[in-house]
């Protein structure tokens, strides 16, 4: 499995030239300097979500090139082939979340516009949204390739719009917002983590089943 992880990480490094890496670092710094705390809060949310689509692009490329079938000749169980993909995707999101968290904390200490707790909470929210997006995308991509991404994006958009409507316009939604405001943040984060862990496991089981069925 470590060979597959090496392959994915090295592939990303090969694809992103040194110039591109420097450009990404420059953009992060500029957003931090000029956007200050708002900028880093924006990065904390958008960074993981933006990065979530990168590994799925890799998965589609692997499907189209035949790598996904070729890797079946390696002495690696199918579930580990899928698990390696999940580990790769999630660790990328964790890494960017960690970087944006560092930037966030730095701006919080320098400018003291928002509390440190808000920065940390928002980083965690960004991380969880990014992971959620990946665990929804991967089974869809294994099942349907590029079309799967389109389906998930539409689904996520509908869920967000539906969720916003329910929260703003319904009594239940307003009660839910009030309850969230009164609940301990730490407890909320722990509950969210458990929920996403369960969804990730279900997602992985579905992906493994779909992937194994390609060897019929």
């Amino acid at each position, binding site marked *: 499995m*470590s*060979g*597959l992880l*090496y*392959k994915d990480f*090295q*592939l990303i490094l*090969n*694809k992103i030239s040194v110039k591109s890496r420097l450009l990404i670092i420059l953009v992060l710094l500029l957003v931090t300097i000029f956007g200050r705390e708002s900028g880093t809060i924006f990065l904390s949310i958008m960074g993981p979500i933006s990065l979530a689509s990168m590994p799925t692009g890799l998965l589609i490329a692997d499907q189209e*090139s*035949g*790598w996904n*079938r*070729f890797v*079946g*000749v*390696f*002495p*690696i*169980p199918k579930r580990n082939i899928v698990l390696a993909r999940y580990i790769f995707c999630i660790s990328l999101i964790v890494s960017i979340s960690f970087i944006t968290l560092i930037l966030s904390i730095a701006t919080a200490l320098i400018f003291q516009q928002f509390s440190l707790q808000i920065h940390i909470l928002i980083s965690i929210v960004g991380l969880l949204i990014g992971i959620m997006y990946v665990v929804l995308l991967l089974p869809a991509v294994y099942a349907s390739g590029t079309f799967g991404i389109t389906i998930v994006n539409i689904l996520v958009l509908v869920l967000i719009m539906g969720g916003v409507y329910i929260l703003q316009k319904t009594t239940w939604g307003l009660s839910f917002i009030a309850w969230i405001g009164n609940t301990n943040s730490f407890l909320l984060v722990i509950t969210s983590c458990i929920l996403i862990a369960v969804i990730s496991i279900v997602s992985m089981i579905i992906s493994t089943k779909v992937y194994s069925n390609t*060897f*019929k």
Partner: protein
Amino acid sequence: MDTKPVIDVLNLSKRYKNFQLQINNLKINEGSIVGLIGENGSGKSTFLNLLLNQIKSEIGNVKIFGLDYVKDECQIKLNLGVILEQNYFPNSFSVQQIEKMLEKVYPCWDKKLYHNLIDEFDLPTNKPISNFSRGMLAKLNFAATLSHHPRLLIADEATSGLDPIVRKEILSMLKEYVNDNQMTVLLSSHILSDLEQVANYFIFSKRSKDR
């Protein structure tokens, strides 16, 4: 001499819409170099995919090294080398990066052998393989596959599309390697002269007309 069969196939059948592969009984013993020859569409690649567990048969049984894919898939694949017509390594990877990937996949990866084969084939180690010619890719695939010392090598049209000089070079190297190591080879090709150069047994795959 009582040699164990490395490949043991019994009543194997695979059906597609317009095609059916049927093998009643086939045993390939250890140390053999077997050429699988047949016309296009006769089922050579289907048979090899069944041996590699890349596709499943409707009925029948395949045992590799006396082991079953259902229970011992990883054990089989640790000792299996596969060379296909097309290159599947990432195009942006260099020879070195492919080595780093494969040495993590195969516990018995032989670094020295890989470097010797790469040097013998005169392949550049730091350039992306997207710059490689077809012949260079074929040599790379052979080097990468032999370097984990497989007990069974399955090659599906591995020398197709290569010029005669490169084909001769690869097949000579393969024959020399097989003589030095106790390895079984199943080589599929529609080029009879290639198989005549290395194989000591032949399997003929025949396409029957639909009735």
